């Protein structure tokens, strides 16, 4: 009779290793998430570093947000014009643009830009601090590196992305106005009166809420990947890259979930 004398070593099988690594990673993310909320509310607070990060995330992203916001509004209006013109409905452009920008474009485009600019920066900065032992140096000088580096950055992205998204919405509307003015010579006041007719407080609230969620995601992904970077300079590059890819992917997933929830429960 055939007898199996070879005991299977599950630990050496590749799918087992992959699954184990995946669940360990999930556990690390869960621990990191819990630790953030714990450290964020327990004093002492790193006010100075939080303000510093507000500046880094906010002021330094302002120019690119202004430029992309204006171009987005302008181009989107230009592209929508021909379709509406077929039905003689170009007068709907202001309200169409307001809906598109406030409900989708402003938070989404802002989050994607901040993910590319700030998320990668956070991942690379923390990653390089990790591989050059700077995080350990903070720890041995009896400073809490998690509070100083992670909490301050996640708070900054969570608070500043909604501000940037609101600002981008206004700049985007300005871009839309420029296009409408060039074609129909609509006045500034008439354009904005028509634009905000179909925008409610729920829309503004959802814009702020989902931008905050995106901001948290960007900060969290950047900090997590940077904080656990390893393998020298290769690890730093990987941390920066993973931060951007993961946060962009999650932003789209969150967009889908939030839009579904809002349409089902708030409309």
């Amino acid at each position: 009779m055939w007898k199996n004398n070879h005991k299977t070593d599950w630990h050496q099988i590749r799918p087992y290793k992959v699954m184990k690594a995946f669940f360990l990673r999930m556990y690390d993310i869960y621990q990191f998430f819990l630790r953030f909320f714990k450290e964020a509310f327990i004093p002492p607070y790193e006010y100075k570093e939080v303000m510093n990060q507000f500046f880094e995330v906010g002021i330094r992203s302002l120019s690119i947000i202004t430029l992309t916001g204006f171009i987005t509004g302008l181009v989107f209006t230009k592209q929508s014009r021909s379709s509406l013109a077929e039905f003689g409905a170009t007068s709907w452009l202001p309200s169409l643009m307001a809906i598109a920008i406030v409900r989708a474009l402003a938070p989404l485009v802002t989050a994607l830009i901040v993910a590319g600019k700030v998320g990668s920066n956070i991942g690379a900065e923390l990653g390089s601090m990790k591989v050059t032992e700077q995080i350990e140096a903070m720890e041995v000088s009896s400073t809490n590196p998690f509070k100083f580096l992670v909490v301050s950055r996640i708070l900054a992205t969570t608070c500043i992305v909604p501000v940037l998204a609101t600002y981008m919405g206004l700049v985007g509307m300005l871009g839309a106005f420029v296009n409408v003015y060039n074609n129909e010579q609509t006045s500034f006041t008439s354009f904005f009166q028509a634009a905000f007719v179909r925008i409610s407080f729920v829309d503004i609230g959802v814009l702020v809420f989902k931008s905050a969620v995106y901001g948290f995601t960007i900060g969290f992904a950047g900090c997590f990947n940077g904080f656990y970077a390893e393998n020298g300079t290769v690890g730093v590059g990987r941390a920066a890259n993973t931060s951007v890819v993961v946060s962009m992917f999650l932003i789209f997933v969150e967009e889908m979930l939030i839009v579904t929830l809002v349409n089902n429960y708030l409309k």
Partner: protein
Amino acid sequence: MAAPTPEITAKKAPAEIDRGTAVIELRGVRKAFGDLQVLKGVDLDVFKGENVVVLGRSGSGKSVLIKIIAGLLRPDQGSVRVLGSEIDSLGPRELRALRSKIGFSFQSSALYDSMNVRANLEFPLVRNKRELTRKEIDEAVVQVLDDVGLSQSLNQMPSELSGGQKKRIGIARTLILHPEIMLYDEPTAGLDPVTSVEINDLIREVQQRYNTSAVIITHDLTCARSTGDRVIMLSEGCFLRQGSFDEVFESADPRIQHFYTYNFITKA
């Protein structure tokens, strides 16, 4: 005319070692990473005022040993007592309080790239001694920079400093909290011989001026001879031999002799 020969060994400090008070006590410490057993049951006592050098080849577990002492790594087995506290039983707050009494000089210096020298030095001070005024902080920074001989570097960024200067600033950053224990991880690695001698001198000066005990991890025999009151040879996770520098290298153990020979040093 021939150039003057640099001083090879640092001035021996008349260190007052209190052999009745152990500031670091390790008992049966074991540490493995996966299947690799790095430390295989290490016992160590470091006494008050004593500089202990742990010598060994790369990968022998030296850095793991001091990271365990600093509480950055947890041992798999064994106990670690530092300044009377069992590291394993401490919560995060108690551990941070204990760490304010331990200075750790990293091999890479680990200066914060985004901060200048002043901010690097202030960093541990403002977080651990919140009661200090601006004037007191400034005075402490100037004093500690003066002690490491770099008072002119106050506003420089780490990228503008040489390797030796980075080491000094790294040591200054730990000294600013007036630690009772100093841990040096490869203090002379990557430095030229003259700068190495200067760092060795500095380690002795720190011992005298700040009355510290120290564990110095190195594979540099000149550093070991000049800075250590006691030298311990670590090989494959075990202590092979300990004593004065000469006592250790009198051993006929081929692993010790091999290490000595490859450091290109002749016995005095």
